[in-house]
């Protein structure tokens, strides 16, 4: 007799812990063929707010960590992901070779971003030669808590939107792909075992049309990545809501995740701080 498998309960990831939705709600996740796969948690407004609180709480420590430390931790995430390549390939489904390549690309993308932690300031900062006896230095700083609506691509896309936000010191609340949320929760297991402080990344599963506007309107969120919102009306609504506290909104055209990501996903959620200091005896 074959062994009956022990299935995993897919929960949310908030503040480094894995709670169920406080609402007790869930929704059915199906395979490409329409078969039942799992019940995913359907996060509520309260869950979203808890996630923002957790992200805000993690912000001082994470943004205050040395860039070297943040880079080491992102590289550690890549190491942990590498160790679970087979699991992720299986979860992604579809042709095995293609799935494996997507997982490999996700690991490499993390490594690429890990290296940016202590380089972005050299590339985007500047010593400004002002016309006067002043020292004048501009450095990039993280914007704060960023809400990210993740794209449909459930792993490479997800990594490609989370890594650029956190490598510079932001913390985030991520709305996972609605149709393929399970790799996001498995990724949370990777994040939870990679020395990433709790609350730096918080993952919500559920209905994008509910969660995105709540986060867009949240007054303690500083940035909003709408890359995963395909419904133009929803995106417009979110962008309008975001205007209330002038969130930095990123609304890219559809992206090919296999291409060189460039710097825009990092720079959109960076502030430039310029320090003046007089020079004189």
């Amino acid at each position: 007799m074959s062994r009956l498998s022990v299935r995993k309960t897919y929960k949310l990831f908030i503040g480094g812990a894995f709670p169920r939705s406080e609402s007790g709600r869930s929704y059915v996740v199906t395979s490409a063929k329409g078969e039942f796969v799992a019940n995913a948690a359907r996060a509520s407004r309260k869950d979203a707010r808890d996630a923002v609180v957790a992200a805000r709480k993690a912000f001082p420590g994470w943004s205050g960590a040395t860039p070297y430390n943040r880079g080491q931790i992102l590289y550690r995430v890549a190491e942990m992901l590498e160790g679970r390549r087979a699991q992720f390939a299986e979860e992604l489904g579809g042709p095995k070779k293609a799935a494996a390549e997507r997982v490999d690309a996700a690991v490499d993308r993390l490594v690429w971003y890990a290296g940016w932690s202590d380089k972005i300031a050299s590339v985007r900062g500047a010593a400004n030669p002002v016309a006067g006896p002043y020292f004048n230095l501009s450095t990039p700083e993280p914007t704060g808590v960023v809400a990210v609506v993740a794209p449909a691509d459930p792993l490479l896309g997800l990594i490609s939107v989370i890594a650029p936000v956190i490598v510079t010191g932001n913390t985030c609340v991520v709305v996972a792909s609605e149709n393929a949320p399970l790799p996001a929760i498995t990724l949370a297991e990777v994040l939870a075992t990679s020395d990433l402080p709790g609350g730096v990344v918080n993952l919500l599963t559920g209905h994008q049309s509910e969660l995105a506007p709540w986060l867009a309107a949240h007054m303690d969120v500083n940035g909003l990545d709408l890359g995963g919102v395909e419904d133009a009306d929803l995106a417009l609504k979110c962008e309008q809501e975001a205007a209330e506290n002038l969130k930095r909104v990123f609304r890219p055209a559809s992206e090919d995740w296999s291409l060189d990501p460039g710097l825009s996903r990092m720079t959109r959620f960076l502030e430039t701080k310029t320090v003046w200091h007089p020079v004189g005896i």
Partner: protein
Amino acid sequence: MAFEYAPAPESRDVVDIKPSYGLFINGEFAEGSGTPFKTINPASEEKLAEIATATSDDVDRAVQAARKAFGVWSALPGSERAKYIFRIARIIQERARELAVLESLDNGKPIRESRDVDVPLVAAHFFYYAGWADKLEHAGFGRRTTDGHSGAKPLGVAGQVIPWNFPLLMLAWKIAPALACGNTVVLKPAETTPLTALLFAEICQQADLPPGVVNIVTGAGETGAAVVAHPDVNKVAFTGSTEVGRIIARTVAGTDKKLTLELGGKAANIVFEDAAVDQAVEGIVNGIFFNQGHVCCAGSRLLVQESVQDELLAALKRRLGTLRLGDPLDKNTDIGAINSAEQLAKIREMSEIGDSEGAERWSPPCDLPEKGFWFPPTVFTGVAQSHRIAREEIFGPVLSVLTFRTPAEAVEKANNTPYGLSAGVWTEKGSRILWMADRLRAGVVWANTFNKFDPTSPFGGYKESGYGREGGLAGLEAYLDV
């Protein structure tokens, strides 16, 4: 009342020193053709191992291996090169204790420094440059080429010659950026400190680095000269004395080799009357007694404002009385052994010149071990700018104290040297720090701190302290065809 410290020696069981070591060429250890030499523990004069000497034929084999590997290595996507270098960084972290103990045994520096400064910086340096390997197009050096590629290209084979004061750290400063940019290397460690470089060769094997990407050739000056003069080397990087730097610049003249030099220094550590005295004293001690003063950027000239001279010197002498000199493997040791008999002789000679030129020598009461090479922390007061101990690099734990009255005078005296590697400024006034920094002709200016290093921060000299920078974005330029 003073408490004695019980010995707290670090165990040397973590290192496994072989009786003899060969050269590392094309991914394998090979015999050298020259007469082997021995490397000793400068704290005990005990022989540690026999080391192969690479002749010019051996160097030629190493360069050929590097040339062959260059095709493969430079053609790898940057992201793959990055992963190799990240692996190296990780293995260094994993074997940190072993590297630290070996470095202290071979070099004589206190374990506290090799463990807390050298080895962590080495790992950080590889980690940092690993991250550049796939981001070179963002570094701003590239011209778009006709084949549509952007970003500057690697140079080819780099010949690198490094000193004995920070053996593994200097190796990291040389190899990490070279590999990240797609070059391959032939590196010659110093004659008195080859062991960590040879352990690094083993680390390259553990990382599965393709053969020939890193080659290590050991030997004395002749081996280094053969590396520098080899016609198939495209880039020469040297850290060491200004005297040898000049010879290398002369050798390289007229060739297409790209050259970077990190040479001597005679840094001024300038203390103003408003400085926090205790912090300044710590900075002065760190500036000149870190690594027994075997530091090219050491703060070997203390320039103190006349009004606080007495107070500062009293505090400095009190602090020097608490420094512990002795067994480098003891975790309480502040000052280890002088690296070699030759260097000890040079420090003694320069100190005697200081006496004969009329400066006043002072050292705290300090018992020196009977075996090994030792020199007590030493302060010369009443030093004039014309004195040789104020002009020449001693490269030992010897501080020359001069005074000044105005900021302009401090600048004048600080810059009155052929060197220009580093400087220190101690004052509570921010605008004065920046005013001084604007006028100091030195590649690194530390304010209210000293001897700070970070892979993201460029390091290198003005004037006869050499040219080129190591570290940071600027450090890539030395290894790219720009």
